């Protein structure tokens, strides 16, 4: 039995009158890669923000269970790089030094992960001197350098062109296999979700879990493999079912 890294129990999150997450419950195993999919506005990003402590919880529980003495640190890779423009790439990594880690150790880690994402030579550059893809990689290195218990990724490749995004996905999988981090990966791209994840959680329009399935496809996965295509079409069927339920609900409300 694998250890739990993230535990979410009956999580509810409201923004004013609007319920964004409705009784969401799931546990994530350590070192696994879980993808969370759903339409825009279904609460995917809110789920990560709640876990990261950026948004307060309305009710329920969402916690990162600490193990291996990592004091439950969270790395967060956002949709945009969110680097501080007045700091160099390396200084941006130094900025997030966690409490209890001394400066030398942290700097060494920063250098190590910058090398891992291929930014060794760009560490003294300012963000504006790098391309969008390179900035995003810096964001990934920043999340990794705190050696987090869990890595939260919120559509990290959606702003990139498909060729760069493809290379980044490959690279992310390599880093994941090297570092054994637990990853929660939010995306609206079903294909990306199936390609990357061990497990797929689909949220419906009401912020409830609609589907929660294991993806036991062999790696490396190829988008042209028969097994991959079969699995992917199953996921698309779930999606279609969700859409038809939504259409019925709207019809019942008298909306076209």
């Amino acid at each position, binding site marked *: 039995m694998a250890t739990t890294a993230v535990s979410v129990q009956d999580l509810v999150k409201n923004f004013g009158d609007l319920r964004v997450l409705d009784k969401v419950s799931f546990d994530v195993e350590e070192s696994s890669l879980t993808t969370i999919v759903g339409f825009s506005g279904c609460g995917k990003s809110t789920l990560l*923000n709640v876990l*990261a*402590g*950026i948004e307060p919880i309305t009710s329920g529980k969402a916690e990162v269970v600490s193990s291996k003495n990592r004091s439950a640190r*969270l790395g*967060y890779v*956002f949709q*945009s790089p*969110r680097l*501080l*423009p*007045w*700091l160099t790439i390396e200084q941006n990594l130094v*900025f*997030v030094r*966690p*409490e209890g880690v001394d400066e030398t150790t942290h700097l060494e880690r920063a250098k190590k992960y910058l090398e891992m*994402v*291929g*930014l*060794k*030579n*760009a560490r003294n*550059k*300012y*963000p*504006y*001197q*790098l391309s969008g893809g*390179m900035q995003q*990689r810096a964001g990934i290195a920043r999340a990794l350098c*705190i050696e987090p218990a869990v890595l*939260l990724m919120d559509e990290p490749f959606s702003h990139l062109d498909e060729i*760069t995004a493809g*290379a*980044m996905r*490959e*690279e992310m999988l390599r880093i994941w296999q090297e570092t054994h981090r637990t990853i929660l990966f939010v995306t609206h791209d079903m294909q990306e979700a199936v390609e990357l994840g061990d497990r797929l959680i689909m949220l419906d329009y009401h912020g409830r879990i609609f589907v929660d399935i294991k993806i036991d496809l062999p790696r490396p996965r190829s988008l042209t493999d028969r097994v991959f295509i079969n699995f992917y079409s199953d996921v698309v069927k779930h999606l279609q079912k969700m859409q038809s339920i939504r259409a019925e609900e709207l019809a019942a409300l008298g909306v076209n």
Partner: protein
Amino acid sequence: MSVMTDVSPTSLPITTTRRFARSIKRLIFHKGWLAVLMVLVIWQIISFFLGGHGLVPSPARTFATIWEVLVTGEFFVQLGDSLVRLLIGFSLAMAMGMIVGVLMGSRWFWNEFFKDIVILGLSLPGLVYALLSVVIFGTKLLAPVMAILFASYPFIAVNMREGVKALDKDILDMSRAYKVGKWKVVKQVILPALLPHILAAIRTGFTIAWKASVLTEVFGATSGIGYMIRFNFQMFAVRGILAWSLLFGCVMLIIEYGILIPAERYFARWRPHLSEEVI
């Protein structure tokens, strides 16, 4: 290997010597010189027609007076007096403007509270503050200080408010997700983000402060550049008025080009367009 390892520097570093040579070149080829030349020519023509009555002295005679004021050291004594008043008044204005501006930018209540007062402050001419403070405080140091404070703080407040409103919420959220300490966030996120606005506040506020200070000296002071302008006015010495006014303008330009613009450029070195300007 994938594309990830292929990262090369995108620009060469600019050395200090190159930068210095560039600024000298920029000074020599500065387009503003043409405008100065034009003004001098027009001035010369006007003085040629009106000069007979001593109303408009020629540029040459005016520069002779400027030279005289400079070599006797008179200018520096008066400038010193003006600068002391200016620095005290302006420091107070900065403090007040920053407090008001930050409150307005961060809290809806304070924005509503100060909004009208600040707009009123922006629209009243410096002359009003100068006259009022001379009437109330006479020739005391407090007169120019108060005039400067009230004339320039609204400009600082407005700039600061915009700066606070423009703070990037995404970056602040990021700092929160990474549990970065409050003090570190202030030092490394908030202050650098506000810096361009602080500099803009200093630049506009300082110009207003200078004007208010000189105006106050015109009406109620026994020293300073403004006082010298009035003194020459009473003596009917147009040459003196022109000489002191021009010197005053030169000091403003020196402060602008010598301190404010370089400071702005230094603090904006992380921005592509301001730090690597092409000439």
